[in-house]
C-alpha cells in the first residue's frame, strides 16, 4: 500500500468534477448563458473525469490500494468502479437536463452545479476511509440532492418532494451520525482501516455490541438506498422531482449508499466477524424480502410512469440487498454487477420517459399509447430495458439476477430465493403495462401532432441500451472487474 499525504494525483477525477463546477460558474458570470454551451462544458468535464477513473481503475498502484491524506481517503478498484458508476449516471442526468423542458434555461447552470456537487460528494464517499470523511461526503451529497429534488419551485409536487427529502434525509443523517459516533466509541478510532484490524484481531470482547451502531448506520443508509421500512419518502420524492433528477436518484444515490454499506460490512468488519454477529444476515434477508415485495406490490397499481419506476427502484434495492444479506464475497460481487446492469437499464428507461415528457408533458402510462408506432427505436430500447429490469435473458438484468440468486442459493437462503423469484414474476406485470400501452394500443390523435424525437435522445437511448444487451451476452469481463473491486475491498 502506498501511503502518503500527497497522493493527490489519484484524486484527479474528483478534482476535475470540482473544477468543472468552478468553470461553469465562471463562464456563466462571464456571460455564457446558453444552455448548450454550458452542457458541452460539463459533459467535457465529466467525460474527462470518467476517463481518468477508468485509467486509475487499471493502474497497478491502485489495485494495491493508495492511501491519501493519512488514511482519510483510499483509492482502490472498489472506489474507482463506483466513481465510474456515479459519473455515468451524472453524465446521463446532465444530458437529460440539457434538453429537458422541466428545468428552465436560465437556472440551468445552478442546477448543473448542484448535480456535480452531489457527484463529487458521492465520489469522495466511495473513497472515504475515515468516519469523519464518510459523514462529510455523505452530507455533501445529501444537501445538494435536497436542492435538486425541489428544483422546480413553481411545481408544488417538486416543492413537496424537496421538503420531504430534507426532512427524512435530516433525520436519517442524524441517526447515522449517532451510529458512527457509537462505533467510534466502541472501537476507539475513526479510521476504518484500523477498525478492520481491531475487529479482525478479535481484541474486541464482544462483537455483539457492534450490532447497535451498525443498525443505526444501516437505518441512515436505508433511507438513502430506500429499503423497507425506510422507503416511504421515495415514491413522493421520485415523482415530484424533475425527471432527470429522479433518474439520477434512482441510480446514483442508491449506488452511493450501497458503496458505503459494502465498505462498512465487508471492508471494515472482516467477513467472518460480520457473520458472527447473530441475526445480521437473517435480518438483512428479511428486509430484502420485504423491500422487494413492498416495492413490487405497490408498483402494480401505479398509473404514473415515474412513480411506477420509483417503486420499481425500491424493489431493485431489495434484490441488491439480497446480495448484501449473504455477507460473502460472491454476494458482494453480485451486488456490484447488478448495480452496473441496473444503472444502464434504469437510465435507459428513464431516457425514454424524459424524452416522452418533453414531447407530450405526460407521465401517465395510459396516455402514452402507440409509442411503438411513433418512435420505433426508442420503444424497442424501452422494451429491452424493461425486460432487463424484469430480469429476462439475454439482458444484463438477467445476468445480474443470476449472480444474486446464485449467491443466495449457495448460501442456503432458499426462502429468500423463492420470494425473489415470485417477485420477478410480479414485476413483469407492471413493466408489461408500459409495453401494453406502447405496442398494443393505437396512438391517440393528439399524440401524432408532436414532432419527431430529437436525434440526441435517440442516440442516448441507444447508447444506454446497447450495453444492456452486450452485458447480457458477454459479461465475463465486467464480472472480473467487479471481482477485482470486491477483493480490493476485503483483502486486509
Amino acid at each position, binding site marked *: 500500500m502506498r501511503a502518503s499525504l500527497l497522493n493527490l494525483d489519484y484524486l484527479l477525477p474528483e478534482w476535475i468534477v470540482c473544477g468543472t463546477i468552478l468553470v461553469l460558474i465562471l463562464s456563466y458570470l462571464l456571460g455564457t448563458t446558453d444552455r448548450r454551451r454550458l452542457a458541452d462544458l460539463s459533459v467535457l468535464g465529466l467525460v474527462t473525469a470518467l476517463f481518468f477513473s477508468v485509467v486509475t481503475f487499471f493502474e497497478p498502484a491502485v489495485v494495491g490500494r493508495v492511501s491519501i491524506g493519512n488514511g482519510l481517503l483510499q483509492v482502490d478498484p472498489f472506489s474507482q468502479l463506483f466513481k465510474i458508476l456515479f459519473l455515468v449516471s451524472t453524465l446521463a442526468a446532465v444530458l437529460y437536463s440539457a434538453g429537458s423542458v422541466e428545468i428552465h434555461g436560465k437556472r440551468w447552470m445552478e442546477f448543473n452545479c448542484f448535480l456535480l456537487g452531489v457527484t463529487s460528494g458521492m465520489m469522495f464517499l466511495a473513497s472515504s476511509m475515515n468516519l469523519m470523511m464518510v459523514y462529510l461526503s455523505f452530507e455533501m451529497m445529501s444537501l445538494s440532492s435536497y436542492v435538486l429534488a425541489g428544483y422546480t419551485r413553481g411545481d408544488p409536487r417538486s416543492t413537496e418532494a424537496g421538503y420531504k427529502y430534507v426532512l427524512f434525509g435530516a433525520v436519517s443523517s442524524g441517526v447515522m451520525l449517532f451510529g458512527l459516533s457509537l462505533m467510534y466509541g466502541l472501537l476507539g478510532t475513526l479510521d476504518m482501516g484500523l477498525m478492520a484490524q481491531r475487529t479482525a484481531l478479535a481484541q474486541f470482547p464482544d462483537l455483539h455490541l457492534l450490532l447497535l451502531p451498525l443498525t443505526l448506520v444501516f437505518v441512515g443508509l436505508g433511507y438513502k438506498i430506500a429499503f423497507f421500512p425506510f422507503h416511504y419518502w421515495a415514491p413522493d420524492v421520485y415523482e415530484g422531482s424533475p425527471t432527470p433528477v429522479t433518474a439520477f436518484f434512482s441510480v446514483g444515490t442508491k449506488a452511493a449508499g450501497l458503496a458505503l454499506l459494502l465498505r462498512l460490512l465487508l471492508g471494515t468488519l472482516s467477513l467472518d466477524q460480520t457473520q458472527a454477529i447473530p441475526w445480521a444476515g437473517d435480518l438483512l434477508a428479511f428486509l430484502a424480502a420485504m423491500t422487494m415485495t413492498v416495492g413490487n406490490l405497490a408498483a402494480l397499481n401505479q398509473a404514473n410512469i415515474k412513480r411506477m419506476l420509483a417503486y420499481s427502484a425500491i424493489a431493485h434495492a431489495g434484490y441488491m440487498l439480497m446480495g448484501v444479506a449473504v455477507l460473502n464475497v460472491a454476494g458482494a460481487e453480485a451486488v456490484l454487477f447488478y448495480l452496473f446492469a441496473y444503472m444502464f437499464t434504469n437510465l435507459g428507461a428513464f431516457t425514454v420517459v424524459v424524452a416522452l415528457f418533453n414531447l407530450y408533458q405526460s407521465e401517465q402510462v395510459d396516455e402514452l399509447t402507440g409509442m411503438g408506432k411513433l418512435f420505433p427505436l426508442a420503444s424497442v430500447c424501452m422494451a429491452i430495458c424493461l425486460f432487463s429490469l424484469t430480469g429476462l435473458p439475454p439482458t444484463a438484468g438477467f445476468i445480474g439476477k443470476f449472480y444474486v440468486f446464485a449467491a443466495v442459493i449457495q448460501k442456503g437462503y432458499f426462502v429468500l430465493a423463492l420470494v425473489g423469484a415470485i417477485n420477478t414474476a410480479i414485476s413483469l406485470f407492471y413493466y408489461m403495462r408500459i409495453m401494453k400501452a406502447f405496442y398494443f394500443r393505437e396512438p391517440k390523435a393528439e399524440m401524432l401532432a408532436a414532432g419527431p424525437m430529437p436525434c440526441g435522445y435517440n442516440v442516448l437511448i441507444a447508447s444506454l441500451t446497447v450495453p444492456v444487451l452486450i452485458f447480457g451476452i458477454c459479461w465475463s469481463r465486467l464480472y*472480473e472487474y467487479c471481482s477485482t473491486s470486491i477483493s480490493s475491498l476485503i483483502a486486509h
Partner: protein
Amino acid sequence: MGSYLLTLMIFVPLLGAIAVLCVPSREEKVLKTVAASAAAVPLALAVLLFMQFDRGSTAMQFVERAPWLPAFNIEYYIGVDGLSVPMVLLTALLSFICTLASWNIEKGLKGYMALFLLLETGMMGTFCALDFFLFYVFWEVMLLPMYFLIGIWGGPRREYAAIKFFLYTLAGSVLLFLGIIGLYFWTTPHTFDIVRLAEIGKTRPQEWNPPFQWLVFIAFYIAFAIKVPVFPFHTWLPDAHVEAPTAVSVILAGVLLKMGTYGILRFNYPIFPEAAQFLAIPMAVLAFINMVYGALVAMAQTDLKKLVAYSSISHMGFVMLGIAAATVPGNPGAAAAVNGGVLQMFNHGCVTAMLFLLVGVIYDRAHHRDIYGFGGLAQVMPTYTGFVTLAFFAALGLPGLSSFISEALVFIGSFQAFMTITILGTAAIVLGAAYMLWTLQRVFLGEVNAKYAALPDLSPREIFCLTPLAVIVVILGLYPSPVLDLMNPSLTHLLTFFW
C-alpha cells in the same frame, strides 16, 4: 458445414429477423421473401439432419461446444439426440409453414416477421441446448416475441391473453431458474452440463437425497407443466390460443406445448429418476384429468378455435400418460409407452397445426368461428372440407392416420402400469370422437347457410401450407418407422435410468 449445422439452424432465423428489419416496410413482397427464405434454411438443414442422424447411437450428435463463461462453467453446448430431433424437425417445418400462412397479415408485417423469426431461434435453441444455462436463455427468449405476437396481432382480448400467457410461463420459469441454480451448486464440480447432470442423476447420488431432490423435481415439473399445460395450470391456454393470430396458435400448440413434455423427459427423468418413479401415479392422474377434462370442456365449446385449443389439452394428456407409464419399474410396456408419448408429441404437433390453420382459413373468410353459425360448407368448399375431415379424423385417432399409432402405443404401454387409469382414459378417445364428429356435422353437413354460400375454397397458398402436414399425417399413420427409429434408441436409453 456438418459440425455447424445446429448453430446455423438456430441463428439463421435470427439473421433473417435482422435482415427483415433492414427492409423498408412498404416492400411487402421482399419482406415476405426474406422471411420465408430465412425459415426455409432451417427446414432444409433439419431435413439434412434427419438424413445424417445416426439412428443406432444413443449419444448426443452434432455436438458443438465452446466455453461461454468459464468462471461459472457455462458453455455454449448444443447437440441433438433421438428425443430432440423429432422436435427440431417439427419446429423447422411448422415455422416455415407459418411464415407462409402469415402472408395475409395486414398491419406491421415487418415487425411480425422479425418477431416470428426470433421466436424460431428461441425454439430451436431450446431443443438443441445441452447446457442448462443456455437452455434457460433460449427458453426465455422464446417468451418475448410470443408476448408481442399475441398482444399486437391477436384478437379482441389480446392484451389479457398476452399478459396471462407471459405471467404463467414466467412464474414457471423462475422456479426452473432456481432449480437450475440449486442443481448447479449441488454437484461437484459445479456444472450446467445437461449430459453430465444426467450421468450423475443415474447414479442417484447421496447428496441429492430428499428434500433437495423433491424440491428441484417439483420446481422443474411445475415449470414444464405450465407449458404443457397440465391441469390445473392450463387456464392460460384457451385464452392465448384463441386470441393469437393463426400462425402463432399453430406454433403455440404445435411446438411450445411440446417443450413442456420435452423438458420433463430431458431434465426431470434423467436427473431425478427416483423422484420420477415415486411420482408416477400422481403424474398419471394428472394426465388422466387432462385427457378427460380437456375432452369434456372441448365438447362444450361453441367457438371452433376454443374447441381445438381444449382438444390440445386432451391430446397432451396422452403424452403425459405415456411418459408417466415409462417410469414404472417392471412395466413391460415402458418402451412402447415412452415411444408412443414422444410420437404423440410429433403427431399432435402436425395435426393440431393443421386444425389451427384450417380454423384460420374459415375465420379469414367468415370473420367468426361459431360452430353453429355455419352449415353445409361441404358443398361450398369441398377441398377445405376434405382437409378438415382428414385433420379431424387424425385428431380423433382413426386407424391409418398418425395419431392412432401413437395413442395405441401409449395405451398398450400404460395398461400394465396403470390399469384403471388407462381403461378410464380411453373415454377421452370416445369423447374426442364425439366432439369432432359433431363439429364436422354442424359445420359441414346439412343445409347450406345462405350467408356463406359464396365462400371461396382454399387458395393455392393455403393448400401448399396444408399439404405437407396432411402427407405426414397419412404416411406416419401407415408407416411410422422413420420417426420411431429415430427416437427409439435414445428413449430406450432413457428407460435404463429407471431399471
